[in-house]
């Protein structure tokens, strides 16, 4: 997968422009940073399809030691017979560029941070599409990540190991379960042979709802 452009509009939303068009000077910074980022972004992803067994307090992922605990993941995978686990990253070169910008110019650092967040989302959307193509005839849920709702973030390490992500895409987690490189995502996509309702996605199922910067501004993150 190769990113040709970064979704600037989405990045501007992360920067807090609330739908306003960035001023000329900021726009120049955005363009410059996008170019620098595209040079270092190295999108990598890995995904696999697993059978699942729903239990009372979570989901068992067949053939692995992974257990996804919590009510929310059960709700998310309701009606699904299988799931895709995936992990994606835009790689460590981005972390280095962000560090260098922080030392050089905070404006570039903030702008690049938001652009990089938009970029990893684009990569995830790309993976979504690839899964869709591979599993034609199936229906899939949106992406649910460790840390959402009551799915504990402590599953992160085993999640990565099941996908062999450290070896295959260089993605790791710290002892506090923060993904490194920083601009990375792990997520679960439910797979069903029957159509599934997509209405659940939104603020109600998000554990960030009380502190969400978008909500504070009366906006919506698109989740």
């Amino acid at each position: 997968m190769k990113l040709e452009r970064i979704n600037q509009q989405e990045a501007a939303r992360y920067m807090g422009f609330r739908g306003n068009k960035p001023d000329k000077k900021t726009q120049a910074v955005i363009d410059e940073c996008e170019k620098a980022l595209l040079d270092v972004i190295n999108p990598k992803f890995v995904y696999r399809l697993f059978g699942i067994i729903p239990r009372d307090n979570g989901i068992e992922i067949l053939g692995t030691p992974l257990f996804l605990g919590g009510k929310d993941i059960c709700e998310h995978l309701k009606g699904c017979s299988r799931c895709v686990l995936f992990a994606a990253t835009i790689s460590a070169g981005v972390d280095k560029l962000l560090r260098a910008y922080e030392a050089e110019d905070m404006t570039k650092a903030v702008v690049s941070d938001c652009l990089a967040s938009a970029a990893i989302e684009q990569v995830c959307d790309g993976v979504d599409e690839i899964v869709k193509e591979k599993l034609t005839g199936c229906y899939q849920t949106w992406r649910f990540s460790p840390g959402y709702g009551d799915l504990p973030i402590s599953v992160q390490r085993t999640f990565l190991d099941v996908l062999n992500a450290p070896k295959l895409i260089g993605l790791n987690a710290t002892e506090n379960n923060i993904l490194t490189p920083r601009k990375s995502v792990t997520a679960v996509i439910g797979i069903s042979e029957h159509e599934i309702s997509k209405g659940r996605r939104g603020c109600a199922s998000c554990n960030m709802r009380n502190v969400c910067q978008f909500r504070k501004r009366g906006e919506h993150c698109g989740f």
Partner: protein
Amino acid sequence: MDFKRLLNSKEFVVLDGAMGTMLQAKGLEMGGTPEALNIDKPDWLTDIHRQYIEAGSDIVYANTFGANRFKLKKCGYTVQQVIPAAIENARKACEDTDTLVALDIGPIGQLLEPTGTFTFEEAYDVYKEQIVAGSSADLIVFETMTDLYELKAAVLAARENSSLPILCTMTFEENMRTFTGVSISSMALTLEGLGVDAVGVNCSLGPKELYPVVEELCKWTNLPVIVKPNAGLPDPVTNEYDCTPEEFTEFAEKLIPLGVRILGGCCGTDPDYIRKLSEMLKGKKRVNIIHSIPAACCSATHTVEIDQPRIIGERINPTGKKRFKEALLSNDIDYILGQAIEQVHAGADILDVNVGLPGIDEKAMMVKAVKALQGVVDVPLQIDSTIPEVLEAALRVYNGKPIVNSVNAENGSIEKVLPLVKKYGAAVVGLTLDENGIPKTADKRFELAEKILNKALEYGIRKEDVYIDCLTLTASAEQEGVMETVNALERVKNELGLKTVLGVSNISFGLPNRELVSHNFLMMALTKGLDLPIINPNVDAMTGAVRSYKLLANIDKNSADYIAHYGGNNKATAEADQKTDIDLPYAIENGLKKEGRDITAELLKEHEPMYIINELLIPALDKAGDQFETGKIFLPQLIQTAGVAQTCFEVIKNYILSTGEKTVSKGKIILATVKGDIHDIGKNIVKVLLENYGYDVIDLGKDVDYQTVVDCAIENEVHLVGLSALMTTTLVSMENTVKLLRENNVDCRIFVGGAVVTPEYAEQIGADFYAKDAKESVDIARKFFGN
């Protein structure tokens, strides 16, 4: 049998194939801990090893890839239980054969700083434990490595805690780099310097795709080269590899003419692959090619070949710089990083790093500076200190092959410095002086250069790694010495065939129009063969002299580099503004850094620093803050204005330091991103704003221990502490930090902020203030200090 005899007695050495693939076939579940099977299913292991031995493996890897304290946590066994058991299983399979058993060690599974939170020193300890536990193996293999820094910690741990041979293989992608960006030349230069016994590649790709990687590697090393490819590329859904044993062997055969001597298989391979491989190798002769490895130094990602003049930036050095000294005294690493980035943008190929200053712990500061610098710049570093302990500390933590500045011809210096250069595989600058000082004549200096070279060779340092500095004297004081320097340089270059280095700026000290003299001296030296001018790259005349020399000397082909720098297009900088009569508030409001700097310098001729800060800077910032709060401008713009104000402050600071007045400080504030959290961009925004309002910020960085905050507050008598956290999982660290501050009765107020922090939470954990954004942090500070 041992590894060296094996290597000498056979044309090729055959390794084994995949372990994980075989274990999964036997029933290991995905994501399980394969190393636990050494104890739970020893028969599985002995059987797998035996299959590989029967297929022709000369070395089998014990099942210890992830047997470190960190990864074993999941299964409950210790390193001391698992590793000896694994080696024992392999030994059992090897009975009555000459097959060797390797202690196999993979990545820890934690990214090292600065991308991760694991330190170099912690990584060393993890590896040391494995190496000590695996002392009964015949050799040590580090494989599937993607971070050269982690691998360096591993190699040092092996060399310092074992005498077994060391084999290293890293994992490259088709773009010829590892996941962390390590280049092939950097790997080869660094590992050969560290004294490993063989080097190579494994995993990620098949033998076909690895061809260009191996080809490049063979150019950069004369060590035995290892290739252990995957069975082609895997299908993402079925996880099946696309290369049959026959195809695998066919492509592997093509690697032999490149000089490969050690072969095996990685993911997806099994005994069939190894059998075919070993049959193919039977009766074949290895190809011995001796490459001349060029003079070069490197970071993990970037190699600088000394095949043409390369600029060493001299600005990271406190000598004669009050602002730099102040930065060192106040632990201000960001200032040093800023100096580094500026020089790289200006054209420095290598950066000299000198942080020696009376009153500071030079060793600690050097380690801190080297770690921080290599986290943000790609250029290699030249480690500059007169103290061997400082040099060694820096050499340990440097990620790549650095230059040591310096050794001289005194026996004491040679005996202390050269062993370090050898052990850590650096290049070294040799100064042509000894206990009698700097010789007057070129001939004498040449003799000292020769002595340094011969001593270096005795220590086993390559000739290509010795760079001689014939020493620049000040023309105003010792005019007759100038040509002696130049002539000595010419002889060293031509007669000894060594690379030359020269600090250029000294030449013009005490003369008017220094640039003119320095510039001409540089041109003279370049013509005589200077390879490494040490200059201030920010002075365009100097950097330009090197660029134009390269053009004239037919090094810069088609003047490409020269035109890229001076070819008109880059004149239209983003800061160019048509308006001419701008004032400071305008410059700040419009994000005009250069103008802000110039206007501040002008204003200082007529106004007091405090007037400029209070009457011009702060009102402009306040205005931007108001506009931000009311949604007229947005975060990037607010930070832009802060960036200009920061530049203005820098000018004022320099001015105050030069006049010897006390610095302007409206109060000291500690900022920290709490333990476990590595997202600190928000904190850094707060820092910039606070500094702009005249506060002294002690930035403890990210992932900060609770105790560090307490100690810092007490030691520096700071009464306002700001804490940030971005993750729900690290909020508890914020609470713990607050608790520890209170338990220690630290006389301070605490403000907290960050994406997941709420006013309620702030109150609940006993913080004094909640800051919803950077602007509010400033309001809190103003209220607290009453200014």
